């Protein structure tokens, strides 16, 4: 084996084969997209995870009611290298000499907040605000009590001074249903108030910032193993947003899908470019063999050439992929919905390099083996075609092995291996269907060639030529366009879902402590202020004490609903089921039902409790035990919608006799809200507003990030898809150049050539477009239905737009190429033989 000569020949050949740049370009973009998507996926998911940690106030938390979590209890659970912060939450009354208000009090230690920032007005460090019995209050408190910053207030037995007001609180763990406006004091000052008596409903949290934030779930598992009988609940931030969890999963699914699409289109481009290149080298390969080059050496020569180009493409692709997130970060703010924090994610780059290398090997092996199988005796028979060369069985087995290795690797690095396997399988199936479709359409072109006007016969025959470039070109074009249409269409499905997640009319304000007899007055005031009452529900607090007759402490309850049996929960009752909701099981009671209490329970809780319709739940309602039979099971509540939601809804009757208040959500424009608050404060002083914009804003920010990721990834896929188009056309043009020379020699004029090739381009485009449309829509439907579990949204303009754009580009580049073809001299090509 003469490798010195091989490298010289490789270099000489590269020098004269500019079309090889397509291989580099295809690999660069394919690998870069895969790397960038991998990086983006990691960064987006980490951002979401970080947001989750900020919202919960730590990577994980221990929570107990009634008494503080002692250092002994924490020992063995909290790692030594973790930072911790202790918080106490309790509902209490904040007083002045003349007024009082129910508040959600939080006592915090010096480490608070572990994540995020507490925004105060006037701004100051948290420690300064809480120093020497300072207190931070929500702005609503000032209005309610008629006090100002600097005024004294009282909690229990202790006096405090209002130092500043709360603008934004990073950890809104109270969520929508905290009982009153937030006030914050130093943990050490709480003891003096005397409100934390034994058995009080205070919640104690130890929040934990882990040294290794990536292993939150691992920490939770370890903690539960270390303290199986602990009094406290352990929870990770990852599980803190049940409503968003599904969306994040779907985002990961979409990203997996998009990067697979980018990978497949990149692979196709490589295969096409390699095929075109090798097809042009068959004579050279046969000649080298006639001159005494061994077949393995000659194939190795071109293999080496492709490997060198591949290495170049991979290297550049990795560099570009690593830089792409930084490039996106440079875009002017506002162009993307959110700024993602760019960084290098080595595992994404390694995965892209490994997969890119396998894609190259996988897609190049068969054309190379085919070229190796071409007999040098073909030199005596007017040359040969790559399509005539059948790769030996051994090489087909090797290619199969490479494909299996690639599949395994893709499945291994994908977030959702099952989805990746499904997509790959669907891709293989789709390709098989496409091959059938293209062959059928080719036959049609062949049949038309016999009856078409003479000038159109040649291009039609070119399209119909068996083993010609038509099949691979149309296939690549159709797969490329089809994948793009599929990604865009799937993006729309997710986008539609995101739209549905953000409530059309977010309740901007929730009011609690509306006494039943104030209800009408409240509604009138709201309407007069130009606002609208969205929901109005009776409300009281109760505690679940028995499940199917068994005390709660003795029931093994799934972790996802363990929180629901700790302490009091808000309950409501209603004669009618919630609007737009289909019950999972059971039936809602009739309007006039007044029998023994019935209850509707949320599906997730029912599963966690192990109960079904017909079982009983017993509640402690203001000291009295009320047993209710489960009549209906409601679908899982999506808390991120910002609606008033209750885990337990009772039938009216017995329970509505208990003293209760009413809770309302009100849609009021931000600029009109202060006036409404002032009016209500005067007319109904006991009614307390809860401002939940912040909570919803946080949820919206997360949704925006998901949307940004979808946008970026779809864009990247589009770019890599365009390279496939270019590569496909390069394949066609090489043959057209030769055909143009012959046609010119036979007397074809410029117009004849342009017409001939235009028909061929249009034919290729039409074949590919039709196939792409079928593939794109069918693929998106399959993914929506089976992988995402979302309703399919047919967005005809997206699919048609993508395909139309692809075809417009095809035709445009085709026309540009044609102009050159028509102008070139036929002599050199004919002379080269």
């Amino acid at each position, binding site marked *: 084996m003469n490798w010195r000569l091989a490298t010289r020949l490789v270099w000489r050949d590269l020098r004269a084969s500019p079309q090889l740049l397509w291989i580099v370009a295809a690999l660069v973009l394919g690998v870069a997209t895969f790397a960038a998507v991998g990086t983006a996926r990691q960064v987006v998911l980490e951002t979401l995870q970080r947001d989750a940690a900020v919202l919960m106030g730590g990577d994980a938390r221990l929570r107990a009611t009634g008494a503080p979590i002692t250092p002994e209890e924490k020992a063995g659970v909290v790692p030594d290298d973790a930072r911790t912060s202790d918080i106490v939450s309790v509902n209490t009354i904040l007083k002045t000499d003349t007024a009082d208000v129910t508040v959600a009090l939080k006592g915090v230690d010096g480490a608070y907040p572990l994540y995020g920032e507490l925004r105060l007005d006037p701004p100051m460090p948290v420690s300064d605000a809480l120093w020497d019995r300072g207190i931070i209050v929500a702005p609503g408190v000032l209005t309610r009590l008629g006090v100002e910053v600097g005024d004294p207030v009282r909690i229990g037995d202790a006096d405090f001074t209002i130092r500043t007001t709360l603008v934004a609180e990073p950890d809104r763990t109270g969520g929508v249903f905290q009982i009153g406006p937030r006030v914050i004091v130093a943990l050490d000052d709480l003891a003096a108030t005397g409100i934390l008596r034994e058995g009080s409903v205070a919640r104690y949290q130890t929040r934990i910032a882990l040294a290794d934030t990536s292993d939150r779930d691992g920490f939770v598992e370890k903690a539960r193993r270390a303290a199986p009988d602990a009094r406290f609940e352990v929870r990770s931030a990852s599980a803190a947003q049940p409503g968003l969890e599904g969306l994040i999963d779907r985002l990961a699914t979409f990203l997996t899908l998009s990067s697979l699409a980018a990978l497949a289109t990149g692979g196709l481009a490589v295969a096409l470019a390699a095929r075109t290149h090798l097809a042009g080298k068959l004579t050279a390969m046969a000649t080298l063999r006639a001159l*005494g080059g061994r077949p393995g050496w000659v194939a190795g020569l071109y293999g080496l050439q492709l490997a060198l180009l591949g290495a170049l493409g991979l290297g550049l692709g990795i560099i570009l992929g690593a830089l792409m997130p930084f490039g996106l970060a440079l875009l002017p703010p506002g162009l993307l919905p959110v700024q993602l924090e760019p960084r290098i994610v080595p595992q994404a780059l390694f995965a892209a390099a490994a997969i890119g290398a396998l894609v190259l090997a996988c897609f190049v092996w068969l054309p190379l083996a085919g070229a190796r199988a071409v007999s040098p005796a073909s030199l005596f028979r007017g040359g040969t075609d790559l399509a005539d060369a059948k790769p030996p069985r051994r090489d087909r087995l090797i290619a199969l092995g490479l494909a299996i290795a690639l599949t395994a690797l893709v499945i291994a690095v994908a977030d959702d291996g099952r989805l990746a396997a499904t997509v790959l399988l669907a891709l293989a199936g789709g390709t098989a269907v496409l091959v059938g479709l293209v062959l059928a359409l080719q036959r049609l072109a062949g049949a038309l060639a016999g009856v078409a006007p003479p000038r159109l016969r040649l291009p039609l025959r070119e399209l119909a030529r068996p083993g010609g470039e038509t099949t691979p070109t149309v296939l690549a074009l159709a797969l490329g366009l089809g994948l793009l249409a599929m990604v865009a269409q799937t993006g729309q499905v997710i986008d539609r879902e995101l739209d549905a997640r953000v409530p059309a009319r977010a309740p901007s304000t929730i009011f609690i402590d509306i006494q039943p007899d104030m209800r009408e007055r409240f509604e009138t005031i709201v309407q007069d202020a130009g606002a609208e009452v969205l929901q109005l529900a009776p409300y009281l607090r109760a505690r679940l004490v028995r499940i199917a007759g068994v005390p709660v402490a003795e029931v093994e309850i799934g972790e996802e609903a363990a929180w629901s049996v700790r302490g009091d929960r808000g309950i409501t009752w209603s004669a009618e089921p919630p609007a737009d909701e289909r019950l999972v099981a059971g039936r809602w009671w009739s309007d006039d039902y007044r029998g023994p209490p019935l209850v509707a329970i949320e599906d997730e809780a029912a599963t966690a409790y192990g109960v079904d319709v017909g079982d009983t739940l017993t509640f402690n309602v203001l000291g009295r035990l009320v047993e209710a039979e489960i009549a209906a099971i409601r679908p899982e509540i999506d808390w991120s919608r910002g609606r008033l939601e209750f885990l337990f809804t009772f039938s009216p009757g017995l329970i509505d006799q208990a003293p209760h208040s009413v809770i309302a959500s009100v849609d009021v424009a931000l600029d009109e809200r202060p006036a409404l608050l002032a009016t209500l404060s005067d007319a109904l002083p006991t009614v307390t507003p809860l401002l939940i914009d912040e909570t919803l804003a946080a949820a919206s920010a997360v949704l925006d990030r998901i949307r940004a990721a979808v946008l970026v990834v779809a864009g990247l896929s589009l770019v890599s898809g365009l390279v496939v188009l270019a590569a496909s056309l390069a394949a066609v043009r090489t043959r057209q150049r030769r055909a143009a020379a012959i046609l010119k020699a036979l007397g074809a004029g410029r117009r004849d050539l342009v017409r001939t090739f235009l028909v061929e381009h249009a034919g290729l485009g039409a074949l590919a477009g039709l196939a792409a449309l079928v593939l794109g829509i069918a693929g998106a439907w399959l993914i929506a239905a089976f992988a995402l579990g979302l309703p399919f949204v047919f967005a005809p303009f997206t699919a048609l737009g993508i395909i139309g754009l692809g075809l417009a580009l095809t035709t445009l580049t085709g026309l540009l190429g044609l102009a050159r073809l028509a102008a070139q001299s036929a002599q050199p090509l004919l002379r080269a033989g």
Partner: protein
Amino acid sequence: MIRAEDVHLTLRAQSGPVNVLRGIDLEVAAGSSIGVVGPSGSGKSSLLALLAGLERPTHGRIFVDGVEISALNENERADWRRRELGILFQSFHLISTLTALENVAVPLELAGDWAADAHAREALDAVGLGHRLDHRPTQLSGGEQQRVALARALVAKPRLVLADEPTGNLDGDTASHMADLLFSAVAEAGATLLLITHDPALAARCDRIAQMANGKLVQAPSPRVEAA
């Protein structure tokens, strides 16, 4: 030098097997020249491909210099070609991405000759192309391309030269000049020459003439014709 014994070649085609050669027996002495003539499709080029070891006969044996090339595997035949054979094609088959000099140097480079370029330059000088070393095939005329191909066929000093219509693509004067070059170079090297041609004048310059028809060597009136 060359001995072919009952050589058959059957090619597979979509419409069924095609019997290209049907029992060829042939002997050619070392240092002699033989012209193979016959109508298109008579199997001349296929015979050449077999003698060059580019293909293996379906049946029969071929010996060159006592080596049964029909029994060698693909790699061994490639090695044998590199050492012993020079080929000249009707369509020249120069590698389009290489210059004239590089094309001629390839066989020497394949043989690991470090002075390949210098020898290639001499070979091109010998065919009168010393001034066209850096030109690519598309920048050369047909006659020039065939002269490059001749230089390539002879540069490694082969003992057997096979030529397939070496002047078939050239005009009268150029063809005649090319034939002079070929015969003088082969004679100078003392090599054996087998050439295929339609041109009776070219065939007549060989020591002997063999005529083919329908995949067989047939008896012909020329005293130079040799048949089985």
